């Protein structure tokens, strides 16, 4: 059953407004998605009926607040196909999730000369934490390259992975849209004795996530890109790994006992959740999971493929060689993230001109500067789709590009 975009749109109040007198056409979900009423209502309802701090209260609203917070964890665990809720750590965003791994597992296991294999298409979130370790302790960083179609070059994978302790890669590139063969990389990595960390920020919003099938050891995603609120992300990892890892942030919730001369850590998953957690945000994320599951991830993905195909075809048809769309040409092999160059107009100028007719696209390096250098551009304009976008949105983008052309040529 196909997605009914008209019906979906009704859940997003923000999409029902005019920008500079034009219907808003939101094409920046890869940066952050909009939130349906169900998500906003769940948070509002919590705050208006049963909000209290979690985990320590005996009174009714505190018990209910705790129940809702932990229920969100259960929903997320199921959404990821995790073996247990102990494997699901709430963080503030996926950036913190990856840093958590770098600070705890990384600082325990990586010393001078140890190698980590990343890719040239990583988001800064999966580069900087490892660059910090390189600067601090002299670890070696290696990179899988990207070919002209925006695909990872895997020919020398076995060679590159040799002696590596961790392979870190994104499932879907936030610039190219490329869907990486993570399961294949994980097999080779594991055979070489490396662990695998997967950045699922652009994948979990659009696909059915099954961490076991992906064969990874660490997996992170962020709520605000999948209809959830800001302020919450998630780290999944195999329980045995999490057990071994030292703690990260210290404070309330994450301890079992504190004395003036020492402390003992709490059980999983709370061991890694210091301080008051993002309670309302977890409840909002749980509601986002429910919303996506009610629609069905298969339909979400099918809609993305369809719309991406339409966009690739219609943009090429109308703009010919004036537009250069980066990344794989087969919509099945990519997410709905379209970075493009249009004539030689600077992406920020494109975005500015598009905004004038209500079309919201992102312009810039998309927190992937090394990839920009690899592509030989300073920045790209990027349109990205989600379940509330339709062909009319693509058409609005296409027409607006023509206006930009008129202004700058």
């Amino acid at each position, binding site marked *: 059953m196909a997605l009914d975009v008209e019906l979906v749109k009704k859940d997003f109040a923000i999409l029902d407004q005019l920008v500079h007198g034009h219907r808003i056409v939101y094409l920046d979900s890869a940066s952050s998605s909009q939130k349906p009423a169900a998500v906003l209502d769940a948070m509002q309802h919590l705050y208006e009926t049963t909000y209290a701090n979690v*985990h320590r209260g*005996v009174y009714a609203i505190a018990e209910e607040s*705790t*129940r809702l917070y932990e229920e969100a964890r259960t929903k997320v665990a199921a959404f990821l196909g995790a073996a247990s809720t102990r494997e699901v750590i709430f963080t503030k965003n996926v950036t913190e999730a990856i840093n958590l791994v770098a600070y705890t597992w990384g600082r325990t296991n990586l010393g001078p000369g140890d190698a980590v294999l990343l890719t040239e298409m990583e988001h800064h979130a999966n580069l900087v934490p490892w660059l910090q370790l390189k600067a601090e302790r002299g670890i070696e960083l290696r990179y899988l390259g990207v070919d002209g179609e925006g695909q990872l070059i895997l020919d020398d994978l076995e060679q590159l992975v040799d002696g590596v302790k961790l392979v870190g890669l994104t499932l879907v590139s936030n610039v190219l849209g490329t869907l990486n063969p993570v399961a294949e990389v994980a097999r080779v990595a594991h055979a070489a004795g490396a662990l695998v960390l997967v950045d699922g920020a652009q994948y979990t919003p659009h696909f059915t996530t099954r961490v076991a099938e992906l064969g990874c050891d660490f997996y992170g995603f962020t709520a605000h890109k999948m209809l959830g609120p800001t302020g919450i992300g998630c780290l999944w990892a195999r329980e045995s790994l999490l057990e071994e890892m030292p703690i990260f942030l210290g404070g309330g919730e994450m*301890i079992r006992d504190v004395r003036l001369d020492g402390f003992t850590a709490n059980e999983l998953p709370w061991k890694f959740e210091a301080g008051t957690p993002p309670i309302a945000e977890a409840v909002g994320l749980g509601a986002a999971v429910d919303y996506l599951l009610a629609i069905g991830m298969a339909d979400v993905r099918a809609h993305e493929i369809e719309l991406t195909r339409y966009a690739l075809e219609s943009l090429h048809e109308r703009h010919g060689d004036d537009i250069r769309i980066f990344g794989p040409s087969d919509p099945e092999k990519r997410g709905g993230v379209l970075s493009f160059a249009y004539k030689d107009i600077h992406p920020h100028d494109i975005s500015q001109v598009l905004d004038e007719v209500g079309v919201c696209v992102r312009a810039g390096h998309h927190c992937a500067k090394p990839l920009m250098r690899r592509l030989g551009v300073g920045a790209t304009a990027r349109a990205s789709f989600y379940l509330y976008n339709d062909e009319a949105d693509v058409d609005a983008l296409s027409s607006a590009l023509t206006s930009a052309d008129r202004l700058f040529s």
Partner: protein
Amino acid sequence: MPGLEDLYREIILDHYRNPRNRGELPTPPAVRVEGFNPLCGDEIVVFLDVADDRVQDLRIGGQGCSISQSSASMMSAAVKGKTVAEARATIRAFKSLMSIHEQRLDGADDDGGASGGASGAGGGGGGPAVPEAAVKLGDLEALQGVVRFPVRIKCATLSWNTLAQGLDEAQEASATSPS
């Protein structure tokens, strides 16, 4: 207070006011095990004297709420004199009364809900297993009402998790020392 009758049954308040088997045992031969409830900061201490695969004696120390104290008191009465296998079966039976079902075989429990409790559960060795259905809980059934108050389940199970750990330690000690 009508809503609380389920939680604070008369028999529970009785064990709370007059706890059985409070005190200490000399270690060794007894083992001393502590259980923490990180939610509230309470600690239960179980002194456990196991010999010939039997709980010869046990004493309860530490502090906690009425639920944890009465649960510990009832527990002490229930397992004193029992074989280790029977004691383990009682632990399992009590946990299932608390709606806690062992999910895994590696000895860690999965209480769900908020964090806490000493680790180590009712699995593990110690003579032939006793089916939990065969266990009579008696007075302990009064604690069933706790299930309606999720936060307090940790209170009720605190001493039981500590006992389980104590049984493990006692058996390890007897396995490594000449007997």
